[in-house]
């Protein structure tokens, strides 16, 4: 699970807060969208011409 770090200045306690299922779903969707955008931005290799 993805998490964030939270420092409570009143208590001095640092905690690792796991994403809720909803936050994780949003995170996973964002990562997938970024990967799709990176793929779309990659140059397309030219197709080798058919040999006679």
């Amino acid at each position, binding site marked *: 699970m*993805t*998490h*964030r*770090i939270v*420092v409570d*200045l009143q208590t*001095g306690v640092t905690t690792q807060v796991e994403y809720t299922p909803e936050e994780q779903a949003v*995170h996973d969707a964002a*990562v997938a969208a*970024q990967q799709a955008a990176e793929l779309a931005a990659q140059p397309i290799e030219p197709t080798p011409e058919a040999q006679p």
Partner: protein
Amino acid sequence: MSSVAIQGNAAGAGVFTIASPNSASSYTATLPTATTTLVGTDATQTLTNKTIQGGAITSGTAVASTSGTSIDFTGIPSYVKRITVMFSGVSTNGTSVPILRLGISSGIEATGYLGSTSNIVTGSTPTSTNTTGLGLAQAIDAAAIYHGHIFITLLGSNLWVMSAVLSRSDTALTTVASSSKTLSGTLDRVRITTVNGTDTFDAGTINILYE
């Protein structure tokens, strides 16, 4: 009913007088419910067991920025008018620029920031505006390692003004940024994250001071 006793000292010869100032109003001074010595304003005194709110600089807890998609500092007292965020060797695993956002008790606010961020490198200073937070870099790569300060000050009426000077140790590059943001309530938290919100911190230490 409790009572008040005035007790002299048999070893002394001086006369101590309780005097009233010239005033038409009446006042009551309540004695402390402790065995103690009252102090006046005639000499420098050392305060003990007292908390000064404002005027004193309080350090938060340094946190290793080695995991997670964001680092939050919560519980910032309402009297605070200046916050300093300190970066030492901070890095993320991606190319999304780090960003600082302010928040109130109901959460972090990610809109309404007014300002720009510049990367100063040899021969150019690429600059970008950012409305979703104080941008802590104009652009980065995954190798970026940052050091420096971010200052956040209260101009008034929940209007906060921020500036950052950070530089990289992996290459010769300095970032200068500033922004202002009107919060919808009283600031009580600060978040350091990235624009895409999915890159994770993988090195460094972050702490804050508040006053």
